[in-house]
């Protein structure tokens, strides 16, 4: 096993483990949010291994940074007195999370191995020059996917309006 494969499995294990920990066995809800940060950062590591450097940077900036901070604000807004979930609820969550996640993962793995996906590794040979760098991404975004970028603008506008209408204290 090459060092890259080792890193991939390490990041993958960390991502899955802290995702399960977030739902299942972290005692305090703020700690659960921190566990989510670990998942996000591990995913960024996997992106780097996939040569998607810009995406990895965005993953850390937007997800591990901004979005988790948003989660923390919501947690503080809710003001959970008992520090989050009791042990019974956590146990149930763990069973559910492992049940659902495990079923989907194992199902996918079984289907994938039956269909022989593991025998080929299509991504490695076919990477074009400069793949995943900001230049290649920028050129793709602003030529082939220009329409998608405009649509993202509209989606963001919708979320601004939605957030203001739902969360502003006084709307009259």
């Amino acid at each position: 096993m090459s060092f890259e494969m080792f890193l991939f499995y390490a990041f993958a294990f960390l991502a899955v483990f802290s995702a399960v920990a977030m739902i299942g066995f972290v005692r305090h809800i703020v700690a659960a949010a921190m566990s989510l940060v670990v998942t996000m950062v591990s995913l960024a590591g996997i992106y780097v291994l996939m040569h998607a450097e810009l995406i990895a940077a965005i993953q850390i900036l937007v997800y591990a940074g901004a979005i988790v901070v948003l989660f923390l604000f919501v947690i503080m807004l809710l003001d959970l007195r008992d520090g989050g979930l009791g042990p019974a609820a956590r146990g149930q969550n763990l069973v559910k999370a492992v049940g659902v996640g495990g079923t989907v993962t194992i199902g996918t793995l079984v289907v994938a191995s039956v269909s022989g996906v593991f025998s080929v590794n299509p991504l490695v040979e076919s990477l074009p020059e400069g793949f995943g760098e900001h230049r290649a991404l920028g050129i793709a975004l602003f030529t082939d996917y220009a329409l998608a970028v405009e649509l993202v603008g509209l989606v963001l506008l919708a979320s601004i309006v939605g957030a203001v209408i739902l969360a502003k204290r006084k709307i009259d």
Partner: protein
Amino acid sequence: MLSEYLGVLLMLGIAVALTVGMLLVHVYLGPKRSFDKKLAPFECGEEPIVSPRQRHAVKFYLVAILFVVFDVEAVFFYPWGATFLETGLPGLTTIAIFSVPLVVGLVYEWSKGALEW
């Protein structure tokens, strides 16, 4: 490919070593005369021990979510700026149209007082 990241790893290593080293130096060389007031954490005259679970107002949330939206917007500006020469006028047009809804959104939230504290 990993050799490209050797520098990053090296820097990480130096940073960790430096931090841990300084802490250790402090532990071994610093004079230790402790009394009550000194052991209490100093927090600019604030009461140091309060419940961490204070209720925040919903306005924190609104500001945070608006920040995320414009954060995502900035993410799109970066690759455009980096490839400005290659994408040229079509790219400029794309980003200009892209920013129209966001400017409208900004004007909207401003006039609705969503940015007022």
